[in-house]
């Protein structure tokens, strides 16, 4: 049977040491059984490696930063759509999701489909609100406080014992062992990612993550748990293994069922020595390691595309346990002319 052709816009092309999910998403889409994907890369920086990986990305357009406003973003997307006739966009950066959510209806009227969490889901699972989220849905989360002003650090410090995890609004986290270090981290993170900065109780244990997909009606379409086997100094999994832990899947089902989660997600969990799972963070998008899920039998990017097009998608029931992913770096050689094109024309 001839597969239908779909043109899919994908961001997160920064396959670097703290990688965006674009690579995993595109690999999943290229392996989709239900369609043939033409990939339009959506980049923010000229040195995002996937711009130059023409076997994976057919054409790339630069996008304006989300901070420039949704009108400017929309006008750029209209320009891209006129040329490429996008069927679906999969935004993969936390920082751009808000803008895409705001534009979801408008883009749909243009024929561009997405399958994103609702604004309410996006806001209430935010690390700033994680404590109240855990309370509301009966999930174990570590104590966290959002700090909007440096002076607040001294007010809330007694609520924590050291070390404390200091997290940026969108990305990055540091461990602080005294108040001075919290202040240093606060300054660094607020300068880079804005306010608030989040202080979170340090939980010692092993890191487990779940990549999954909810249909927006309380059903889990996909869920694959992974134990991090090798962690970089940025806290990213450089290697991991698929595992069979019924409790993680149960927690995932509880999360999706109680929030009616719509779209892809990643649950970051910490398993303590007394075997308790703390929910450390919820990422409202596909994670960079999701190709492991594709490889063990759950093609989350493909299912996400089909859901965005309004098709019925049967939940995945199985996956292979004990499969590793091991990330590696690769030096890509690029002609100066290519760099010039994306830098000067904003497309390649």
């Amino acid at each position: 049977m001839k597969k239908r052709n779909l043109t899919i816009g994908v961001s997160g092309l920064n396959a670097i040491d703290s990688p965006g999910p674009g690579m995993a998403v595109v690999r999943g889409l290229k392996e989709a059984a239900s369609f043939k994907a033409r990939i339009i890369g959506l980049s923010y920086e000229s040195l995002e490696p996937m711009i130059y990986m023409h076997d994976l990305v057919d054409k790339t357009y630069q996008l304006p930063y989300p901070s420039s406003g949704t009108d400017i973003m929309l006008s750029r997307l209209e320009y891209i759509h006129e040329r490429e006739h996008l069927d679906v966009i999969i935004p993969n950066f936390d920082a751009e999701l808000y803008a895409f959510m705001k534009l979801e209806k408008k883009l749909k009227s243009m024929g561009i489909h997405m399958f994103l969490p609702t604004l309410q889901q996006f806001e209430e699972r935010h690390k700033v609100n994680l404590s109240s989220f855990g309370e509301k849905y009966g999930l174990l989360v570590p104590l966290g406080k959002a700090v909007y002003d440096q002076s607040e650090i001294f007010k809330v410090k007694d609520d924590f014992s050291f070390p404390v995890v200091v997290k940026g609004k969108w990305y990055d986290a540091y461990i602080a062992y005294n108040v001075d270090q919290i202040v240093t981290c606060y300054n660094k993170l607020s300068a880079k990612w804005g306010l608030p900065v989040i202080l979170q109780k340090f939980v010692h244990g092993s890191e487990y993550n779940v990549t999954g997909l909810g249909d927006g009606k309380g059903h889990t379409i996909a869920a694959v748990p992974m134990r991090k086997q090798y962690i970089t100094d940025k806290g990213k999994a450089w290697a991991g293994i698929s595992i069979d832990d019924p409790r993680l899947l149960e927690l995932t089902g509880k999360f999706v069922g109680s929030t009616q989660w719509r779209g892809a997600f990643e649950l970051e969990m910490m398993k303590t020595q007394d075997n308790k799972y703390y929910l450390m963070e919820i990422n409202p998008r596909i994670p960079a390691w999701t190709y492991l899920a594709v490889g063990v039998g759950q093609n989350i990017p493909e299912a996400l595309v089909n859901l965005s097009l309004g098709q019925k998608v049967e939940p995945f029931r199985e996956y292979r346990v004990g499969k590793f992913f091991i990330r590696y770096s690769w030096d890509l050689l690029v002609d100066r002319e290519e760099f010039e094109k994306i830098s000067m024309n904003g497309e390649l």
Partner: protein
Amino acid sequence: MKLKKNIAVSDTGYLFNPSTGESFALNPIGLEILVLMKQDLSPEAIAGKILKKYNTEKATFEKDYADFMAMLKLNLLLDDDEET
């Protein structure tokens, strides 16, 4: 004490716990004991087989066996571990 049913042990002594993703390397005697455990033999029967095969004292074996069981328990590999 029994090994959890889902624990995979290969002929080389590589042990994998699919629930946690942890893996362990057993030495030859550890592997031999684990194989006997998988046959549902009692600690006494395992001791009998090992003592018959190797030139060692019963007291030494019992101490090492207890240490080995404690290690398996610590790593949540035994069936009676409550994972709550």
